[in-house]
């Protein structure tokens, strides 16, 4: 006696339905209603269970009551076919709509690639930590190796042997120098005002408002100008370098240089590193003045200190060692930003998303190494009593 198991979706009327009928020779799957991806589709778990439990000799389809169909039904039939193959059950597709048979055949033309679904076994926490640690070490090693390559290329640049285009150097200088003035001005002014404001709130309590100028002057010149300018350049220029070189990697322009026997390090990286090396000290000095100006604005507005008095006091507090140290830091940070940007660009993969990843990685790498370098400078300057 035939037994019918039916599954339906929540919708009434023409909603898609599946029913399984047991017949002496096996199973018949009745496909009913309008099968559309946009509709609520009936669950097929019951059908799968029936096939697995009953293990019929044959599975047939009946599409007599099927009104519309698309990939939603194709996926179900494909799953049933897969089960039939798995359990060595004969499948009769004569009851399927004509087009569906052709699509099924197409989907089965190329067998699944062995191992395509294979996933590496999940690593335990120790392995993951170890892997991350070695990746980190590898990252440092790559950075140092790349820095070494650049050093050699810079040596050739200094001796006039490097192969690069002067126009590229000029463009790079323009890009990371004058074109960065606006953002450096804004950030430096704001940092100067913040330092002054923080100092003013505390120092005013002791009647030592004038020393706000000392705090701003020393803070900007020794550390903040170099640090803030470097962070701006990491986000602006470092990311730009990574994106430029990454795109050149994707479009095989770097390959083309290699096959022309032209060193991409000399041709592409050196002008960018030299540009930042030259521009960062200048930007830092500029940032010093703008930052002090920002502090002076707070001094004049909140504390009644004249611009002249503020600047005189700030200059009095500064030392040559501190000023030179600040510029030296900026120069080193500039090289770090350039190397990080170029390294990530040269390591970029071959897709558009890889370019975005390279730009992100350049900013992160640049800022991390800037902070590390800042810490090292603090220790060295302390030892040297600067």
């Amino acid at each position, binding site marked *: 006696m035939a037994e019918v198991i039916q599954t339906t979706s929540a919708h009434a009327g023409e909603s898609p339905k599946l029913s399984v009928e047991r017949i002496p020779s096996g199973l018949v799957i009745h496909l009913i209603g309008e099968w559309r991806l946009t509709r609520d589709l009936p669950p097929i778990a019951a059908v799968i269970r029936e096939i697995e439990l009953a293990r019929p000799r044959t599975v047939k389809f009946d599409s007599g009551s099927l009104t519309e169909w698309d990939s939603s039904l194709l996926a179900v039939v494909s799953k049933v076919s897969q089960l039939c193959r798995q359990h060595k059950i004969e499948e009769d597709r004569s009851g399927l709509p004509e087009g569906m048979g052709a699509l099924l055949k197409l989907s089965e033309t190329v067998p699944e690639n062995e191992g395509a679904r294979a996933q590496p076994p999940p690593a335990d926490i120790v392995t993951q930590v170890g892997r991350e640690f070695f990746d980190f070490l590898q990252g440092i090693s790559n950075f140092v190796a790349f820095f070494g390559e650049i050093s050699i290329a810079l040596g050739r640049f200094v001796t006039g042997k490097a192969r690069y285009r002067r126009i590229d150097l000029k*463009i790079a200088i323009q890009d990371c120098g004058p074109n960065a003035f606006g953002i450096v001005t804004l950030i430096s002014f704001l940092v100067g005002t913040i330092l002054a404001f923080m100092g003013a709130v505390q120092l005013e309590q002791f009647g030592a408002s004038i020393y706000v100028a000392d705090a701003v002057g020393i803070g900007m010149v020794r550390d903040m100008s170099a640090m803030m300018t470097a962070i701006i350049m990491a986000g602006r220029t470092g990311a730009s370098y990574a994106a430029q070189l990454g795109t050149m990697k994707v479009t095989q322009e770097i390959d083309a240089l290699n096959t022309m*026997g*032209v060193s991409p390090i000399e041709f592409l990286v050196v002008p960018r590193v030299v540009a930042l090396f030259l521009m960062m000290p200048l930007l830092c000095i500029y940032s010093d003045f703008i930052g002090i100006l920002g502090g002076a604005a707070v001094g004049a507005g909140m504390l009644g200190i004249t611009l002249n008095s503020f600047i005189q006091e700030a200059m009095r507090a500064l030392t040559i060692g501190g000023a030179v140290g600040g510029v030296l830091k900026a120069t080193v940070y500039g090289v770090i930003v350039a190397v990080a940007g170029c390294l990530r660009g040269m390591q970029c993969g071959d897709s558009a998303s890889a370019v975005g990843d390279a730009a992100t990685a350049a900013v992160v790498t640049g800022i991390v190494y800037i902070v590390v370098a800042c810490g090292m400078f603090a220790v060295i300057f302390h030892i040297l009593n600067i």
Partner: protein
Amino acid sequence: MPIHRHLQKHAADLANPARDDAHIEVKNLTMAYGDFVVMRDLNFTVNRGDVFVIMGPSGCGKSTLMRHLIGLNEPAKGEVWYGDFNFTRADTQERRRMVRHFGVLYQGGALWSSMTLAENIALPLEEFTDLARGQIAEIASLKLSLVGLSGFESYYPSQISGGMQKRAGLARAIALDPDVLFFDEPSAGLDPISSRLLDDLILELRNSLGATVVIVSHELPSIFAIGNNSIFLDPETHSIIARGNPKDLLEHCDNPTVHRFLSRGESQSGDPAAATKNANKDAAEKPPSSSVRSNG
């Protein structure tokens, strides 16, 4: 002795033909990305003056093989020889001298986007010659005129069409009159007429420069129009499953994979007669070129 032959066995079974005029010899080359082996133990020879086609389905490693031939990738095993020069074992300076004899046209042209077309062509000339700036500019103009881009010297790559970029890339590839020209999917993304023009141009340049041409392609019209020798890479066995003149392979090779590929998948049963019929139909639709005639 017949120059071309076809085989459908595993690459290890294929005897490497010894030829006196071998220009490029690949010996036991295994290509891999990490642990993933793309192709293993490849052995083949490209004769001087050949238009050698590296064929195979998408993703089988054709472009990777070309990158190994020009030194952009290092082999996991094996060697690439140019005449008596072991390219794989050479140091950086020796390789640099060797690549001066290569001309490479990449899939998208790979023109340097910050330079004009003339500057793109001038760069290798500046790098490898002592010519005066004026002479370099003249040669750059000449090379552009050879590929039909006269007057476009001051254009940037972004200002010209994809087909023109390919031709400009070709002009750059021949800037130094190379001994070996490599083409990675030269017809990809081109309309049939542009593709045909590029094929003719490649043959003209091969004939006039006397260069050996290595082409990575799966564009059948191009393969049949200009190729006189080929290998077929099979991603299933990671090896060469056929080699020889593409037209001979189409007519005589009974490997179903090669047949399906060369007959555009129309002889899925591996019926050589049907495939040959299709090939003859293709040939009839194409105007013959001198090189095709000489090889056919």
